[in-house]
């Protein structure tokens, strides 16, 4: 580490502080809407809490983890000081200021519109401006990732860009372009109305713009997790990365196809015709491919570790793995949740099946399992792995780490499996109250209660996570060994330009966006009379 330790720590501490604040809100919401609680005197509190939970967990927490981890990778993978440290601090300041600007009106009940905005509902302008500042701060990071990679390439002509950096830059480009959809919605549609300059808004077009961001943002959340699968897990358990090339291909595929598929969130919407819904459904199938390739590469890499440790036979390598190592345990639990969550995703992808579960509690279960489960558990693993290199103090509470990872896994399963089930039964999401005395939904009561228990286990796990970090902060100083990423079985000596840069792929990404989104957006813009009166929230309260 040359000069970005404090920068990375600042990002991760602020990220986890936000996570720590938003986590109990989620459990409170579960309790409020469960049969354990009777009636909330003011349902607005519930929606206020959902807005705060969603905004923090979706926009602030993963963005800061991606940024902080990205700066870490830049120095450790390129093995030289990062360019643009001051810019990086500026980006961080924008994210912090944006977060505060957004959360204050939410806390005051002036912007209970949920993190998905839902115009023509319009909240306090500072909420939206805050979110824009968070995005702009993250764009500074996108630019810095790019600049650092290209400077390194200039100084090392012909050399393969180290895989961790290549993957990080892919993730940053993915986010840079993905965020444009919501940015267009906020800057050109919502904020002018929130400031009172305009009184009408095209709600259908806004939903199309938001879908541009809404799906690929999940892949942006996923990026640090996948980078950890490829570059941390094999090294931490004494294995090798099975294939450097397949890794690059997977990240390139994410970059190209994660974004132009978002209309699958609008399968039941009236403002997009059937043709584009079909097109996006097909592209959603394609985006499963890089994940399926990753599953192979990582399992193969782990198998190498098991055999190097003396594992024999078809399954013997499994028992030879270092299961007491938190990285091994976390990755395995993450994979289990990715498997269940991914299977749910394949169901959502087809619009025939999606019609049964659209906007039900199934969807909440799906993205909590993927994001809160498979993705966030690897954020913990990343923190455990790099913390000693940031603080110069060893993290040695391995038993506590394992307990934390297990409770997170069990809590997430107990939380989300009942959600999937009640979703199939038809429970709509995001309601402050359900009348469990109605015989038609009385059978859902026990399942919802189970979710409350799952949420409580997650809160406990969150507490354990902070105990591990705080204990690390008070440990004696040590000199950590040089940080290493996984080494491939066959490290690349020279790579074709297509696997060592992004020019071609960025062109393809933009072209696919135009093909898949150009017509729906142009059609909405060209159709007269689609703007409807905005409806302000918070004024009556």
């Amino acid at each position, binding site marked *: 580490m040359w000069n970005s330790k404090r920068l990375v720590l600042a990002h991760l501490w602020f990220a986890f502080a936000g996570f720590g604040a938003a986590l109990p809100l989620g459990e409170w919401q579960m309790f409020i809407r469960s049969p354990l609680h009777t009636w909330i005197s003011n349902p607005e509190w519930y929606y206020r809490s959902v807005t705060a939970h969603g905004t923090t967990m979706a926009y602030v927490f993963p963005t800061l983890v991606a940024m902080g981890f990205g700066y870490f990778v830049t120095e450790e993978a390129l093995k030289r000081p990062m360019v643009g440290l001051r810019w990086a601090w500026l980006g961080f300041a924008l994210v912090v200021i944006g977060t505060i600007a957004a959360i204050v009106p939410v806390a005051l009940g002036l912007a209970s519109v949920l993190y998905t905005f839902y115009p023509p509902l319009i909240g306090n302008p500072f909420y939206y401006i805050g979110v824009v500042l968070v995005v702009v701060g993250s764009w500074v990071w996108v630019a810095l990732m790019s600049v650092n990679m290209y400077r390194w390439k200039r100084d090392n002509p012909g050399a393969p860009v180290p895989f961790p950096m290549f993957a990080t830059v892919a993730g940053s480009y993915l986010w840079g372009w993905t965020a444009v959809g919501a940015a267009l919605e906020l800057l050109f549609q919502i904020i002018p109305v929130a400031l009172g300059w305009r009184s009408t808004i095209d709600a259908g077009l806004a939903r199309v713009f938001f879908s541009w961001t809404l799906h690929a943002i999940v892949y942006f959340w996923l990026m640090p997790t996948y980078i950890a699968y490829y570059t941390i897990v094999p090294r931490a358990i004494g294995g090798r990365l099975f294939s450097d090339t397949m890794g690059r291909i997977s990240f390139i595929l994410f970059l190209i196809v994660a974004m132009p598929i978002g209309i699958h969130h609008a399968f039941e919407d009236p403002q997009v015709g059937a043709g584009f819904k*079909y097109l996006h*459904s097909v592209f959603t199938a394609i985006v499963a491919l890089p994940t399926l390739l990753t599953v192979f590469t990582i399992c193969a890499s782990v198998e190498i570790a098991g055999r190097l440790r003396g594992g024999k036979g078809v399954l013997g390598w499994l028992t030879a793995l270092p299961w007491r190592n938190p990285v091994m345990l976390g990755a395995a639990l993450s994979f289990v949740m990715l498997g269940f969550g991914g299977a749910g995703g394949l169901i959502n992808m087809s619009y025939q099946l999606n019609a049964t579960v659209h906007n039900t509690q199934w969807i909440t279960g799906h993205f909590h399992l993927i994001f809160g489960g498979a993705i966030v558990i690897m954020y913990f693993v990343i923190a455990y792995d790099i913390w000693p290199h940031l603080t110069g103090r060893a993290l040695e509470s391995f038993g506590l780490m394992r307990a934390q990872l297990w409770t997170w896994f069990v809590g997430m399963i107990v939380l989300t499996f009942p959600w999937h089930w009640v979703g199939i039964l038809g429970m709509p999401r995001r309601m402050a109250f359900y009348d469990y005395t109605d015989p038609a939904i009385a059978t859902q009561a026990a399942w919802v209660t189970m979710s409350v228990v799952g949420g409580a286990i997650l809160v406990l796990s969150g507490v354990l996570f902070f105990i591990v970090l705080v204990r690390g902060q008070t440990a004696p100083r040590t000199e950590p060994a040089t940080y290493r990423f996984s080494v491939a079985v066959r490290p690349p000596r020279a790579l074709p330009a297509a696997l060592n840069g992004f020019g071609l792929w960025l062109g393809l990404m933009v072209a696919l966006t135009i093909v898949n989104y150009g017509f729906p957006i142009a059609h909405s813009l060209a159709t007269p009379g689609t703007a409807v009166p905005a409806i302000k929230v918070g004024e009556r309260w």
Partner: protein
Amino acid sequence: MTHLSTSDNGADRGERVEHRWAMVMVAILVVLVVMATFAALYHGAMPQSRVETVDPRTLHLGGEFIESNLGSALEPDGAVTVRFIGQQYSFTPSCIVVPTDTPVTFRATSADVVHGFLIDGTNINLMLVPGYVSSLGARFETPGERLMPCHEFCSVGHEGMWGRIKVIDKAAFAGLAAERRRLSCVE
């Protein structure tokens, strides 16, 4: 099976397995897409094909969503069209009546913000976006009463926005339709 050996021989075999895996995965995805396409074309399981617009400010003044036209209508060809609107925080009509074994078309829109609706225990599920008309075909086999909640956050009263739908015998429906132009089960 992966190989420990980093010799070219082992690595080549590993690569072959990798390529085979990739092919199998592509094949699985192709099968899924073909199934969805077949369901769409053969069973007509498609979302609405056309984008229709409507002005939420004038719903009450004229056009198909005027109050006297809301509810279930028996069409001359024997099919049924159900027209309703969502507004903060109820559906109008709040109780919908439909016959069994009859093609039913739901046509709906929103008078204010984004709403949604689903019918419990079915795959009937639509978003209501102000400015646009949502349309969906359905068919009910069994009589009974089902819940119809709004499933999209529509501001602070969202949790109270529940409608009901009653599926009644086809003949009984025809009898009711002979007496009144537009039917509902609002009491």
